[in-house]
C-alpha cells in the first residue's frame, strides 16, 4: 500500500507526535508498505529518507504555547505537489485541527483520508475560530482516530466528531529485554524509587515525589530516590533537607538509560498533577516490569486499569504516595502479581498491536471495492 503521512510539527524538534509518526512510518515500511512523510523541516535538516521536508517553520503563539508551524502559499504548493507525486492509496493526517500541514493537506486532498487526533487540550477560542472554516473539510476524514479517551472526548465535545481509540505505540520488547542499569539497581535493602520527567515543570509533580521521601525512608532506611529529567531542580530539592542523602538527581538521561532505570528500579512513580492525556512512560515502566505508583488522574487510571496494573494515590498527596510506595516494597508477592498482570496488559500498546489496528482502519476506510479511488489533489477553487 502507498501511504502518505502528514506531520504537523517541526521534525527537528523532539515531541510525542513526531516520535509516533516516525515509529509508525518505520513499522509500516518494515511490513513492506511504501511510506512518505510530509513534515515541516528546513531544507538542510538531516531527515530520514522517507521524510519530505515541507519547508521552514514559523514560531507562532497558538493554543497557549509557542508552536513551530508551517503555512502560506509556498507550503500549500509543496503540499499539492507531494500529493500529486505520491499517488497515495491513502492519506493519514495527524492533528488536522492545528493550523499547519495536517490541515493544509486535508484542504488540498481528495480520496481515502484517515486522521489521528493527539491533543486533549484544545483551547476553545482557537478552535471556534478555525472550525467554521474547516468544517466542510472535516467531512473528508473517513476514519478518525483518537490516541486516548481524553482526546476522543475533546473531539466529541468540541467538534462533534466521534473517533476510534488507538493508543500510541510502545516497543514493549525494548523495555522488557533492556539490561538493568547497575547504578540504579534496586535491592531489598536499598530499593530504588524512580521519577522521570522535567524537574522544573510543577505539573510533573517532583514536589509530590520528594514529599514522600521521609515516610518511605522511615520504613525503608536504605531507600534511594532517583530523579531523572532535564531542568533546574533546586527549588524542589530544598524541601528534602536532612533526607537529601537519599535523593540522587541525575539530570537528562538517554533512551537506553531510561530503559535500564525502569528495568532495575523497585518502583516507578508518576506523580503528575494534571495535563496528561495518555501516560506513555507508565506503559514503558510496565513493559520493563517496574511496579507503578501513579496519581489518580483519569488518563493514568485508564492505563492502570483502575488500579489492577499499578497502585493509585490521590493527586498531589505526598502522604498517600508514601503509603503506596511502602505497600509496593512491603509485599513483594502482591507486587509480583501486579507486575505480571501489567506485562499482559501492556500488550495492547505494543507497536505490533497498534500497527495491526491502524492497518485495520486503513483497510476499513479503503473498503472492499477493487480499484478504489486513490488520493489526489482536490480541484483548485472547489469546496474544502
Amino acid at each position, binding site marked *: 500500500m502507498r501511504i502518505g503521512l502528514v506531520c504537523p510539527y517541526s521534525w527537528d524538534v523532539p515531541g510525542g507526535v513526531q516520535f509516533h509518526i516516525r515509529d509508525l512510518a518505520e513499522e509500516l515500511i518494515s511490513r513492506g508498505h511504501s511510506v512518505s512523510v510530509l513534515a515541516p523541516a528546513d531544507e538542510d535538516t538531516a531527515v530520514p529518507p522517507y521524510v519530505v521536508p515541507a519547508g521552514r517553520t514559523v514560531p507562532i503563539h497558538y493554543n497557549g504555547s509557542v508552536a513551530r508551524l508551517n503555512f502560506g502559499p509556498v507550503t500549500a504548493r509543496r503540499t499539492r505537489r507531494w500529493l500529486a507525486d505520491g499517488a497515495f492509496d491513502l492519506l493519514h493526517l495527524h492533528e488536522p485541527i492545528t493550523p499547519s500541514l495536517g490541515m493544509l493537506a486535508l484542504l488540498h486532498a481528495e480520496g481515502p483520508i484517515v486522521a489521528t487526533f493527539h491533543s486533549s487540550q484544545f483551547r476553545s477560542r482557537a478552535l471556534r475560530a478555525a472550525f467554521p472554516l474547516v468544517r466542510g473539510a472535516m467531512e473528508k476524514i473517513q476514519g478518525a482516530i483518537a490516541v486516548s479517551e481524553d482526546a476522543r472526548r475533546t473531539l466529541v465535545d468540541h467538534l462533534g466528531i466521534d473517533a476510534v481509540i488507538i493508543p500510541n505505540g510502545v516497543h514493549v520488547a525494548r523495555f522488557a529485554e533492556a539490561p538493568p542499569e547497575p547504578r540504579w539497581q534496586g535491592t531489598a535493602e536499598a530499593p530504588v524509587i524512580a521519577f522521570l520527567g522535567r524537574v522544573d515543570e510543577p505539573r510533573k509533580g517532583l514536589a509530590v515525589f520528594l514529599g514522600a521521601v521521609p515516610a518511605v525512608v522511615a520504613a525503608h532506611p536504605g531507600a534511594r530516590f532517583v530523579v531523572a529529567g532535564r531542568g533546574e531542580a533546586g527549588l524542589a530539592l530544598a524541601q528534602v533537607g536532612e533526607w537529601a542523602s537519599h535523593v540522587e538527581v541525575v539530570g537528562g538521561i538517554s533512551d537506553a538509560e531510561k530503559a535500564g532505570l525502569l528495568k532495575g528500579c523497585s518502583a516507578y512513580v508518576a506523580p503528575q498533577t494534571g495535563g496528561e492525556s495518555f501516560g506513555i512512560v507508565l506503559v514503558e515502566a510496565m513493559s520493563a516490569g517496574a511496579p507503578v505508583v501513579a496519581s489518580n488522574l483519569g488518563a493514568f487510571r485508564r492505563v492502570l486499569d483502575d488500579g489492577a496494573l499499578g497502585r493509585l494515590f490521590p493527586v498531589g498527596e505526598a502522604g498517600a504516595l508514601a503509603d503506596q510506595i511502602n505497600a509496593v516494597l512491603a509485599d513483594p508477592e502482591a507486587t509480583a502479581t501486579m507486575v505480571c498482570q501489567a506485562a499482559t496488559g501492556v500488550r*495492547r500498546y505494543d507497536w505490533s498491536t497498534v500497527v495491526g489496528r491502524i492497518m485495520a482502519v486503513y*483497510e476499513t476506510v479503503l473498503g472492499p471495492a477493487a480499484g478504489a479511488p486513490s488520493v489526489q489533489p482536490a480541484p483548485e477553487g472547489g*469546496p474544502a
Partner: protein
Amino acid sequence: MTDHWTGSVMIALAACALLVTGVWYAAIRIDRMHRRVDRTRATLQLQLARRASVALDIAHSGLWDPVTSIVVAEAARSAIEAEGLGPEESELTVALRAALGDQEQLVEDLNGDDPVKADALRELADAWYRVELARRFHNEAVSMTRRLRQRRTVRWFWLAGRTPMPVSCDIDDAPPAGLELAQPLA
C-alpha cells in the same frame, strides 16, 4: 442615475454569484457524503458477514462443546442469511460473548497451549474489531450527512434529491472483555 443602476446591478450579480457558488459547494458536499454513506454501509455489511462466517467455522471445528457450537452456528447462520444490519447481528454478538466466557477464560484460551484454538480466536478478534471500526465509521458518516441535510441551503434547493435520509446502525457489537488482548493477525 446610470451609475446607481450599474452599481445595483453589479451588487445583485455578485450576490447571485455568491449564492450559486454556495449552493454548488453544498451540492458537492452532500453528494460526497451520500457516496460515503453507501460505501461505509457496504463495508459494514461485508465485515458483519465475515465475522459470522468466522464464527460458523469455529462452531464447526469442535473447539467448543456441542451445545455452545449449535447455538453459535444457528446465530451465525441467521446472521448470514439476513444479509442486513438487523437484530440477527446483535443476537450473534450475545451468543458469541456467552461462548467466549469471561476475561480470565478468554486470556487463557488466547495464550493457551492449543494453537488451533488461539489462532481461531485471533481470527475472530480481528473480524470483530473490523465490525466495530466499520460501524463507527458508518455511523459517523450518517450523522454528518444528517447534520448537513438539515441545513437550509440543502433543504430549500432540494439538494438531497430523492436519496432517503440515512439511518445509523445500532446493533450490539460490544466485544467481551479480554478479546482486545488477542495478538493481531500477521
